[in-house]
């Protein structure tokens, strides 16, 4: 109402200024908190003491202009800084026509255009004429890798987001012609190269390796000129240009630095070090996300969890001293047992559902179904005020079953379950009908049929709801200790963090000593002495009273479930059993051993790590060296392993600089496919170029060859710029061999944790659960998860430690109540269920004289294979009983087909 009456238009910043709203507004429907707010800068009442229309029209009387800003003094034990990133200055964008030509957009604006909730409801249109563009160009590295604007670093995320935006655009409009102009294609994240390949193959997105210097307008179109690697000039006309803008330090970085008294680096990001990536220069002030350096979502999430772990280490003794517990009202058991009184709420989801399905018709239809006493429609059921109103209506009408006809239970059921809980109803008494994701969205062209389907789905949900029964929420006690597998940098960091948070850790290492790959590193990427980092870590681990170290030891078997694992560890021919509540996988990776390129045939051919070891021993071996040739992507990116090993580019640059430092006159050549020196490592790359290191691009179909001569070796490779092969007599050939997964197969089977096709462990969710695996109570960090730098391994280890400590700190874990239940009166003890259960969640036990099956609630995932294979139908599934499913099947038929 207030938005409607406000006379003051303001630009909608949520929609990247592509739309208009009013001074009082809400950014987006699912915003939390979900109340409208007044843009004080634009409001007439606040600034000129006029108007006041909104306060008068608000029926709830919720607008109070007498409120003043308040200052709060909070006493806290630690601070986590996560202010995010800032935007690239518009002056930088102006060079590319932004502001002058309406069809030059930033990638943020383009993102809103492709979004169904965006200003154009997902249709891609040109701002200048609202027509559909045919040719779109994406320009990369806008405000990144560009010293002229002060941002010498790489923003790390733009290459991948440009590919994503281009793919999404192609999905909407398959006829679009999209070109992306890269300097290097930096898709070094886990699974990113695969996604890029898919996008190129499936959508036919053109990849052009060139930097476009400027954008001009010709006849209403946008003209670009560029020069490719072979020295040729090109030009082309486009209907739309998207600037892939980089991530800057936040606008108020200086303010934060002053207030929090922390140091910033030369790009105004928070200063941290490789061995403590989440710790600022001030004790107790931690940092996470893009303020620590440009990064993507999973890394930000990882750092956030990691920062939480460090805060928890610092404040372990004060744990639970200031928390408040949420209390729920007692369940109204009597009401639950009454005849079903069902309430059906049909959600519009804005236009998402109501734009296709006739929501009012579905609502009225619901009213005709048996047992339904209340039927209503809501604009956004998941918004906070709607939830509140649903709760009130349940109470008013004494409902004891609720059907929410909206989106997917996979995403939203917990929300509605919580609503029921908050008013004293068992959370199992809600059922959802998915009329959005599996109806309105997928049948957009057939509104009538979609409405019919929605009615059917509601009828089936109501039928099930009639038979829903309250379920007990089981909890199990937790053994307050952790098993950490692997004692490299990641494993040790994780173990230390859990131990510092006050819990016992058993650290198991296959090798004879602690350290893993860190033992082979000489310098960290920020130039620290790697052996000192290692020594410090080992010392702390060995001295910690909460850590028990087992070297030359291996995990033989793991049984149990989150909170109560039992593992068998073998060491020196003996085995021992340990009990623990959680598991951290930090099994590491190993240097890929190359095939070909003369490796093994000549002592002049070595890997980067081998070079690093030589350099550490002194520069004597360089006495006669004239040319050193480095070859990137040996083994990685489709050579032998499909993945990108992420850090070889930076490692090569680092070692090239070390070579130059040891012997300035030596020529260093680096043959690469894309230089992926992301983030602040771009500085090293620039420095290497300045110092005369020569970088020459090759493509995967024309790889450099190492040729053995009677004396020495030479490298032959195709040089794009010259257009011909070049030959370099090489004193040394250094292969950037990348990172191969460790022997994860065996452990994967023992723990039932899935691997990626590359052989690394698979996380539970690529974005939001980057350090958890699909098995509850098992967490993941370091090279076991995928190639990454020491800094990233440490951050991830802290994150895994945070996640692993959560169940330990809680002391109890809740189990989903969808588990199986054996009716022992009917059970004949045949053991079929026990043998078939994929989770070892059923045991046979003696009850009196006979054997009976029993479910181990904490292990059960509710798959139901036991129920469907029980000869006597003695097993029932919580929330998915035979009766309920049968009722759904009967309701599937519009005429109904109950048994007489």
């Amino acid at each position: 109402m207030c938005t409607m009456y406000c006379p003051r238009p303001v630009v909608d910043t949520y929609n990247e200024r592509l739309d208009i709203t009013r001074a009082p507004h809400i950014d987006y429907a699912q915003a939390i908190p979900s109340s409208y707010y007044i843009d004080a800068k634009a409001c007439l009442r606040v600034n000129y003491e006029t108007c006041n229309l909104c306060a008068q029209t608000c029926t709830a009387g919720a607008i109070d202009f007498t409120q003043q800003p308040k200052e709060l003094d909070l006493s806290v034990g630690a601070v986590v800084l996560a202010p995010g990133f800032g935007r690239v200055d518009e002056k930088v964008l102006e060079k590319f026509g932004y502001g002058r030509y309406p069809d030059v957009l930033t990638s943020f604006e383009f993102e809103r255009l492709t979004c169904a909730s965006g200003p154009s409801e997902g249709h891609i249109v040109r701002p200048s004429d609202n027509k559909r563009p045919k040719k779109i160009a994406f320009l990369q590295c806008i405000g990144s890798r560009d010293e002229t604007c002060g941002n010498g670093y790489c923003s790390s995320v733009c290459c991948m987001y440009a590919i994503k935006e281009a793919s999404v655009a192609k999905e909407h409009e398959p006829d679009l012609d999209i070109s992306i102009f890269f300097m290097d294609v930096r898709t070094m994240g886990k699974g990113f190269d695969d996604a890029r390949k898919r996008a190129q193959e499936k959508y036919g997105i053109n990849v052009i390796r060139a930097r476009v210097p400027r954008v001009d307008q010709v006849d209403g179109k946008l003209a670009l000129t560029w020069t490719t690697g072979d020295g040729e000039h090109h030009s082309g006309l486009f209907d739309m240009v998207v600037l892939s803008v980089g991530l800057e330090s936040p606008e108020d970085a200086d303010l934060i630095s002053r207030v929090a008294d922390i140091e910033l680096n030369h790009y105004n990001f928070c200063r941290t070090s490789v061995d403590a990536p989440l710790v600022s220069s001030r004790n107790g002030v931690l940092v996470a996300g893009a303020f620590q350096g440009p990064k993507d979502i999973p890394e930000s999430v990882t750092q956030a969890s990691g920062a939480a772990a460090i805060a928890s280490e610092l404040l372990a003794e004060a744990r639970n001293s200031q928390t408040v517990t949420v209390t729920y009202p007692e369940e109204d058991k009597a009401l639950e047992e009454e005849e079903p009184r069902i309430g059906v709420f049909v959600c519009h989801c804005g236009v998402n559902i109501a734009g296709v399905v006739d929501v009012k018709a579905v609502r009225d239809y619901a009213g005709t179904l048996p047992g339904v006493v209340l039927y209503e429609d809501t604009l956004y059921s998941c918004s906070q005020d709607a939830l509140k109103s649903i709760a009130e209506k349940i109470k008013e009408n004494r409902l004891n079953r609720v059907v929410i006809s909206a989106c997917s239970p996979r995403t939203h059921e917990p929300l509605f379950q919580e609503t029921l809980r908050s008013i004293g109803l068992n959370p199992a008494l809600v059922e959802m009908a998915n009329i959005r994701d599996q109806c309105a969205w997928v049948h957009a062209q057939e509104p009538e049929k979609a409405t019919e389907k929605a009615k059917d789905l509601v009828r089936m949900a109501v039928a099930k709801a009639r038979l829903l029964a309250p379920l007990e929420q089981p909890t199990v006690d937790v053994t307050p200790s952790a098993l950490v597998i692997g004692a490299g940098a990641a494993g040790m960091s994780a173990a230390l963090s859990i131990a510092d948070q006050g819990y016992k850790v058993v650290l198991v290492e296959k090798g004879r000593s602690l350290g893993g790959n860190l033992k082979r590193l000489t310098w960290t990427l920020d130039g620290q002495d790697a052996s000192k980092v290692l020594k410090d870590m080992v010392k702390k681990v060995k001295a910690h009273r909460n850590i028990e170290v087992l070297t030359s030891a291996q995990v033989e078997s793991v049984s149990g479930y989150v909170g109560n694992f039992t593992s068998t560890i073998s060491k020196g021919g003996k085995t021992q059993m340990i009990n623990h509540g959680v598991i951290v996988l930090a099994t590491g990776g190993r240097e890929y051993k190359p095939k070909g390129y003369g490796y093994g045939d000549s002592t002049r051919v070595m890997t980067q790590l081998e070079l690093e070891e030589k350099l550490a021993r002194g520069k004597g071996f360089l006495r006669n060296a004239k040319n050193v040739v480095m070859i990137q992507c040996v083994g990685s990116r489709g050579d032998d392993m499909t993945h990108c090993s992420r850090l070889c580019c930076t490692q090569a640059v680092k070692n090239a600089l070390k070579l130059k430092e040891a012997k300035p006159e030596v020529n260093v050549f680096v043959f690469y496919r894309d230089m992926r020196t992301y983030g602040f490592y771009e500085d090293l790359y620039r420095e290497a170029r300045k110092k005369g290191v020569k970088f020459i691009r090759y493509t995967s179909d024309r790889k450099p060859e190492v040729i053995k001569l009677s004396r020495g070796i030479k490298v032959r490779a195709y040089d794009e710029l010259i257009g011909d092969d070049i030959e370099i007599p090489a004193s040394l050939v250094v292969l950037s061999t990348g990172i191969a997964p460790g022997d994860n197969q065996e452990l994967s089977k023992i723990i039932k944790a899935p691997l990626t096709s590359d052989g690394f462990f698979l996380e539970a969710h690529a974005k939001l659960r980057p350090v958890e695996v699909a098995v509850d109570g098992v967490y993941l960090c370091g090279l076991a998860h995928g190639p990454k730098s020491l800094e990233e391994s440490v951050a991830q280890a802290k994150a895994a430690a945070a996640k692993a400590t959560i169940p330990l700190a809680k002391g109890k874990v809740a189990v989903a109540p969808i588990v199986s239940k054996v009716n022992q009166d009917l059970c004949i003890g045949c053991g079929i269920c026990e043998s078939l259960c994929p989770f070892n969640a059923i045991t046979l036990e003696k009850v009196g004289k006979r054997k009976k099956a029993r479910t181990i609630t904490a292990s059960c995932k509710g798959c139901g294979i036991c129920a469907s294979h029980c000869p006597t139908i003695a097993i029932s599934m919580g929330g998915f009983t035979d009766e309920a499913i049968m009722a759904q099947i009967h309701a599937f038929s519009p005429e109904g087909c109950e048994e007489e």
Partner: protein
Amino acid sequence: MAETCKQFLADCGINPDRLTLEWASAAEAPRFVELITGYVNNIKEKGEIGAAEGEVDSATIKRRLKAAVKAAEARKPRSALGMLAKKLHKDGEYSKEAIAKGVSSKIVPALRAERIKEEMILLLRDGPMDIDALCSALSAKKEEVEKPLSQLQKKGVVEEQDGKFKLTGK
């Protein structure tokens, strides 16, 4: 399970291709769309249940499936299904042939026997029938019908009168 259903559907006179079991992981939305579209078109071609080639008419299907559901509840065939699953699981044997063979030799005969018995009772509810009529209505051989019939007689559920069988009302 799927194999059992398919073979049993065929046994009941329903085109087994009306049932399909497909896999699409959470990340495979395009594959899912392909599968579901293909499947719907496939069923469109087949037409309404009972209308496809070789299928029994829809009234028979209704009756027969009613009996079939009862059969699938019975302990004997369920045990057969469970034991087969257990054995295959234990041997790590998941080949299509092995499953199909196990199902056709162990489970479907048990299901069929139960189905014939249950359907017989349903048929006789509508009035007395002689053995030949029963055989044809049940799509079964004489010896398949005689055995359960005599069992039902022994139990006193069915009685014979003038060469026709009828329910005793017990």
